[in-house]
């Protein structure tokens, strides 16, 4: 609790004691009316002086209708009507409610900043053999910094000395540590677990990943959702309307009774009912709990490595009808690997050895994958006379044997008979000394979680899944089949992807949103065009963070479904709170108008609804981890399985 909250707490405790004493005295010793008035007003001032002052300031600043004004009028009115104890009680409970609210908000603020605890406080600058602790802002690009075990990496850079394990969980939500050694790029916000490392910085602090992410999270609340704007508007109209209704309730029925019916006006009764109206009219429960729900949703998501740039996107995400995937780097790893060697008349390893050597001067991803598959040191002295035949392949001498390596066109050109390949992927044919020696298939691999991610999306009720790719028909169809995506568009240029997404946007149902998921590398225009653009694997890629609405810190496709689930939960809580709070208020207003609710009920309804709504909102912060989620499903499944067995035995 901060100082302000403590002061209020002491005032509340003091008031409770004084109030109890005054109540006892008042009951036991039939005090004179004026004496009990003075006693109650004294207690009232202890608890309510600041509210009265704020209400007065509001009036002088032409900002009449706020909750301070409502509470001031209602309580002063009650006291003037002779309902001293009610007047004090209403103010007391109102203050308790306010204190609870400010405590709850402060608490969730702290919770969320703990979840996003990646802000580095200092950097250990290494200069002339000495280490100096400095503000990370002062470290220039190209400086050397030292990070010891247990310390946060303050600035992005490359390790120049030492190796270690890094904990990236604050950034990605991934709990398995990653290894880093000399030459590895490291990003700020990670925690160094084991060894001491020296890092040469490649960015300024302000441009580093941790700073960027924090900036993103902190400005996320600035894009407000429709629900939040609705509540702001609602509060703006609701309060004055209830005030005028209260005024009407205080004046019209008695005047009607007096002049038209000729009966007793009963001003006291109607004014009391009008004041009850005012107590109920405070929209606090909504005004606080709706933004709090979104805040908690965004905070909970960021703890899972899902950064959402605004509550409008969180809201839109809950109405996802169509998910469009880019293939490479999104559902597949985006790295090429040797997936098969066919028709080789020598040992596979030997064929790879020739291929890897012939390609050893090339930096093409395919050459790299060949070298990786070979897995041993390449002896460049064995290779001579390398000729790159652009668009066809390579001709080189390895161990004085002529190796031809390339596509089918190369084999045709050199009139070597070759065998076609039925596998999907890039096929590299190899011929040695003019004799065909088989081919090597290189293909991208599905991410480990891609299939599971599609199932999860189905479970979230996503109706349409579409895959876009620049790759060939065969590759596209094979990947789509494995993932059970039934809509796929292939051989697309980057511009075609925008057109396709625009067509899909026109086809979608009203009220549903289209998500585009890409790796953020060259799909910025598509990310921007979709209702929601999700960029994945964003660690270290500024372009993706800039272009997307939602950023997945790592490249796990499961997080798409997780983000949708978080948004659904958040929206469910938001609607629960809206219906619950407005429902209770309207009910109390009706009861109050007919004299069935007194001020006690009104204040309990007001504070009670607010407390429940705030507690409900905080619930959003807690995201069930994926493991737990799967465990629940599995448990359910196992139980079903068991009962199935029992029935049969």
């Amino acid at each position, binding site marked *: 609790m901060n100082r302000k909250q403590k002061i209020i707490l002491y005032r509340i405790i003091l008031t409770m004691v004084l109030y109890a004493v005054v109540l006892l005295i008042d009951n036991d010793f039939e005090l004179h009316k004026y004496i009990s008035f003075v006693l109650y007003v004294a207690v009232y001032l202890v608890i309510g002086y600041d509210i009265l002052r704020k209400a007065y300031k509001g009036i002088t600043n032409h900002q009449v209708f706020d909750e301070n004004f409502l509470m001031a009028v209602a309580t002063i009115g009650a006291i003037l009507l002779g309902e001293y104890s009610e007047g004090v009680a209403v103010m007391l409970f109102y203050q308790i409610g*306010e204190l609870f609210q400010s405590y709850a*908000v402060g608490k969730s*603020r702290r919770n969320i900043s703990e979840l996003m605890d990646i802000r580095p406080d200092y950097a250990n600058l290494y200069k002339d053999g000495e280490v100096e602790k400095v503000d990370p802002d002062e470290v220039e690009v190209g400086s050397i910094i030292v990070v010891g075990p247990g310390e946060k990496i303050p600035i992005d850079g490359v390790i120049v000395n030492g190796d270690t394990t890094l904990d990236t969980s604050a950034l990605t939500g991934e709990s398995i540590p990653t290894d880093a050694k000399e030459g590895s790029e490291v990003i700020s916000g990670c925690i160094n677990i084991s060894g001491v490392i020296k890092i040469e910085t490649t960015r300024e602090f302000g441009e580093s990943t941790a700073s960027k992410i924090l900036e993103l999270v*902190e*400005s996320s609340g600035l894009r*407000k959702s429709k629900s939040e704007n609705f509540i702001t508007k609602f509060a703006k109209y609701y309060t004055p309307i209830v005030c005028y209704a209260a005024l009407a309730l205080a004046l019209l029925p008695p005047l009607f009774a007096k002049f038209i019916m000729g009966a007793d006006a009963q001003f006291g009764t109607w004014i009391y009912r009008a004041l009850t109206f005012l107590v109920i009219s405070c929209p606090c429960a909504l*005004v*606080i709990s709706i933004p709090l729900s979104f805040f908690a949703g965004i905070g909970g998501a960021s703890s899972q490595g899902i950064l959402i740039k605004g509550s409008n996107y969180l809201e839109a995400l809950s109405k996802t009808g169509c998910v469009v995937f880019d293939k490479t780097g999104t559902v597949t790893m985006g790295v090429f690997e040797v997936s098969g060697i066919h028709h080789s008349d020598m040992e596979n390893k030997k064929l790879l050895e020739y291929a890897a050597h012939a390609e050893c001067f090339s930096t093409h991803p395919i050459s790299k994958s060949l070298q990786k598959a070979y897995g041993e040191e390449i002896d460049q002295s064995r290779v001579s006379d390398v000729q790159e035949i652009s668009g066809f392949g390579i001709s080189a001498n390895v161990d004085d044997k002529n190796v031809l390596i390339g596509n089918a066109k190369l084999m045709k050109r050199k009139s070597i008979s070759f065998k076609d390949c039925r596998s999907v992927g890039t096929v590299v044919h190899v011929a040695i000394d003019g004799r065909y020696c088989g081919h090597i298939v290189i293909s991208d691999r599905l991410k480990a979680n891609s299939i599971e991610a599609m199932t999860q999306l189905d479970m979230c009720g996503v109706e349409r899944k579409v895959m876009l790719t620049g790759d060939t028909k065969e590759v596209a169809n094979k990947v789509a089949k494995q993932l059970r995506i039934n809509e796929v568009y292939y051989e697309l240029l980057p511009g075609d992807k925008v057109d396709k997404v625009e067509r899909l946007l026109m086809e979608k149902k009203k009220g549903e949103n289209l998500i585009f998921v890409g790796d953020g590398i060259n799909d910025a225009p598509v990310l921007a065009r979709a209702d929601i653009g999700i960029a994945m694997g964003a660690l270290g890629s500024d372009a993706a963070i800039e272009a997307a609405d939602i950023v997945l810190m790592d490249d796990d496709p499961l997080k798409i479904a997780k983000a949708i689930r978080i948004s659904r939960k958040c929206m469910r809580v938001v609607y629960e709170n809206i219906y619950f709070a407005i429902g209770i208020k309207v009910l109390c207003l009706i009861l109050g108008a007919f004299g069935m609710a007194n001020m006690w009920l009104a204040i309990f309804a007001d504070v009670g609804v607010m407390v429940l709504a705030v507690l409900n909102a905080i619930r959003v912060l807690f995201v069930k981890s994926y493991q737990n989620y799967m465990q629940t499903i599995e448990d359910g499944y196992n139980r079903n399985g068991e009962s199935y067995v029992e029935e049969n035995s």
Partner: protein
Amino acid sequence: MKGMVDIMKKTYKIEVDCANCANKMEEAAKKTAGVADATVNFMTLKMNVVFEEGADPKEVMPVVLKNCKKVEDDCEIFF
């Protein structure tokens, strides 16, 4: 959009006690001369101000604070 005319956009830390007061601050800030747009986030206690072209934040911000104090005297903007 980045790269267009020089639009000044700044974020300030604020202090305010209630969500409704934050909304009132937002309105007051928006109406201040020299401010093109303003958003207040009660949860993160941040105020984001977009200044009009040629406006000097150093001159505008004290006025924004004054206007905010008018609607909610228990608030603070750190600039």
